[in-house]
């Protein structure tokens, strides 16, 4: 990307007079001045990532706990009460209360007051005492399937353990005893994030999202604003070259982007205690390339749109949304249909999210991440070349 930039600068020099550093510098100065004059924007641009970080860190908790349930105990025996005790003491469920009929269950589920209802059939204790199986009915609210599936899993596990204890009880009563150890057991070991905390998964991905959301937005608006006002024409008729204009316009926002990144990096590390296993320098280097991608997209958008609102919406569509949805940030890519797997390659967030998680959690070096690094590199070069070409065409 550096090379292509250099080439472009060389081309510029061939085309006309040399790229003038003082001209670039004065646009830079003007842009910095405009940012300074508007401390409000700067403030938001810096506070915003922190708010996002707090929100994601605390609100995006994909662990399902305290599922609110109600129980319809049609047996009302001491046996059924011990069964209920097993459920409520499992730590997964939050028993909201008992109901006496199905209509109440329907009402509670409709209102969303409970996510599941357990119905203990009449004759529960009697049948078990006679050595017969019983069926406990569970109704789950399926509107949010991932949570529903987890509830089903918990309830099945509780029933299994309870069944085993009953069988054991009966066997012991009859004087016999059988070892009820499981035949096969799963020993799970989790690498990279042993405690399976959502925040360690979310926050490294958030770096990519935040760097994708703000720098392109700010740089697009900075350029389109001048176009809306018409002041861009004045710049075009001046001897300023497009590349000088682009550098002058984007460097300040790239710097803000780095400031944003530094803030969330520090907050993530020290407030949320997200690990940082790999090389900081490598992370910084790859983040820089990524910022070139994101700012490049901003410039590209600015060449296509006439009004700030439209530009902003387009940025939303091609940067923020894909980086949230089609990047593996929350929804895993291997789960997508083939076409969308391919679609994710169009957005650089996908590469950087992998890189960020690899460096922070796995401590990977450049060798393990080579495919992603190469793609990021190609992407940055391509987007900057494209943006500059389009920009030049626009000027002519």
């Amino acid at each position, binding site marked *: 990307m550096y090379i292509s930039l250099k080439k472009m600068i060389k081309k510029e020099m061939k085309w006309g007079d040399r790229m003038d550093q003082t001209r670039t510098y004065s646009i830079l100065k003007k842009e910095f001045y405009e940012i300074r004059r508007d401390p*409000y924007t700067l403030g*938001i641009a810096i506070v*915003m990532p922190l*708010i996002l970080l707090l*929100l994601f860190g*605390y609100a*995006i908790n994909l662990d399902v706990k305290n599922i609110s349930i109600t129980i319809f105990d049609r047996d009302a025996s001491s046996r059924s009460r011990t*069964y209920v005790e097993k459920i409520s003491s499992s730590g997964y469920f939050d028993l909201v209360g008992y109901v006496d009929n199905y209509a109440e269950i329907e*009402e509670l*589920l409709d209102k*969303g007051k409970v996510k599941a209802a357990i119905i203990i059939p009449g004759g529960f204790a009697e*049948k*078990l005492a*006679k*050595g017969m*199986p*019983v*069926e*406990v*009915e*569970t*109704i*789950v*609210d*399926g*509107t949010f*399937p*991932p949570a529903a599936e987890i509830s*089903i899993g918990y309830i099945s596990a509780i*029933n299994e353990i309870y069944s085993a204890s009953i069988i054991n009880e009966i066997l012991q009563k009859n004087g016999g005893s059988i070892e009820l150890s*499981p*035949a*096969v*057991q*799963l*020993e*799970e*070991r*989790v690498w*990279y994030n042993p405690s*399976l905390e959502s925040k*360690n998964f979310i926050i*490294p991905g958030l770096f990519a999202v935040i760097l994708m959301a703000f720098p392109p*937005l*700010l740089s697009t*608006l900075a350029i389109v*604003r001048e176009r809306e006002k018409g002041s861009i024409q004045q710049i075009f008729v001046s001897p300023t070259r497009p590349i000088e204009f682009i550098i002058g316009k984007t460097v300040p926002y790239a710097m803000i982007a780095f400031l944003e990144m530094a803030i969330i990096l520090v907050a993530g590390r020290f407030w949320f205690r997200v690990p940082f296993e790999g090389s900081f320098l490598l992370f910084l280097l790859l983040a820089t390339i990524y910022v070139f991608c994101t700012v490049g997209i901003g410039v590209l958008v600015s060449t296509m749109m006439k*009004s*700030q*609102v439209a530009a902003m919406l387009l940025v*939303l*569509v091609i940067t923020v949304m894909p980086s949230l*949805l089609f990047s*593996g940030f929350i929804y*895993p890519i*291997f789960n*997508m249909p083939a076409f*969308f797997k391919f679609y994710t390659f169009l957005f650089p967030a996908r590469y950087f999210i992998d890189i960020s998680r*690899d460096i922070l959690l796995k401590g990977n070096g450049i060798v*393990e991440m080579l495919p992603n690094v190469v793609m990021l590199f190609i992407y940055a070069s391509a987007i900057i070349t494209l943006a500059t070409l389009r920009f030049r065409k626009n000027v002519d």
Partner: protein
Amino acid sequence: MNSRIKALIKKEFIQFFRDRALVMLVIYIFLEIAICGFALFMDVNNLPTAVYDLDKSPQSRALIEKFSSTENFNIKYLIQNYNEIDDLLDRGKASVAIVIPKDFSVNILEGRTAKVQLLADGSNSNTATLAIAYANKIIRMFSRNIELERMGLTENNAALLPTVNNLITSWYEPGLNFTHFNMVSMVAIAAMFTGVLLAAGAVVREKEVGTLEQLMVTPIKSYELILAKILPMGIVKMAGLAVGVLIAVFLFDVPIRGSLILFFSLSTLLFFAAMGLGVFIATISKNMQQALLLCFFILFPIMFLSGTMVPISSMPKVLQWLSYLSPLRHYLDIIVGIFLKGVGLRILWPQVVALGAIGLTIFILSSIKFQKRMG
């Protein structure tokens, strides 16, 4: 007064629809969001899996067969040593690795507990949690059959043991299809986002160009002005919403269990709240950049505290309380209620009241602020 508003509304219509790209984009956002239904799943299927079978016995092969016969695990690599596991997980080529130790079949045959190791890449904690749950389910089934055999029982007479069996029914979404929830929540998000952004954008643009002052010196009341501003956008957004709903229903079989009329009329409440918020943001910001940043500043919390992305019930208590302030939370309850649950106003009235109250408060606030700013 009537003709005044009429003229104003006419002007807004012309102005709004002149920006074709903008109109297309608004509709496109609803489209793109609906398309997400094709691609986004929270449940985990086709998880790239590596298997390291040290035992190579009929038992171990039977277990591997159990794993590969589910949709959840996609056994991509059969490996021969531990180092390969390192490599596959490091590079992210496999998300889990199953290791079957050498004594697996011996332990099973001799009545001891055989162990199976599962190594999961925890850098995606959600996937790893689900993968462990799925694996546990498979192992439990596998184990149960062996245990029954050890007790000298077959599957049939095992059913006569005094056990507590599951009879699970899933209401509203019997197939537990995540796409349906995903669709309606995406449509809700699109309605909220476009509402705030468009309204804020339109008002700030007039402010920047300076035409807002001209309007302010006319006898038009500030609430009239705001209403005239948001009406054309409301119509485009309604069209966008209809596109989103059409896609959800015809492409993804999202059921319409409740009343569509109720849905569209309650959607105006959300539009009202969203666009009121947009106008409010516009009045307190000086230029477009500020306004748009502020929009994001407010939209992200609204989105995350709404239950559209993750259930509110798994958030910390403080955030759960705060979520009541998010208009999107109430709207999501409404849209899920009408489409998936098929409930009506009898159940949804608290959400409707809350959404209306939020909308009205914002509208009054922005009218006052608008007047002060300009007056």
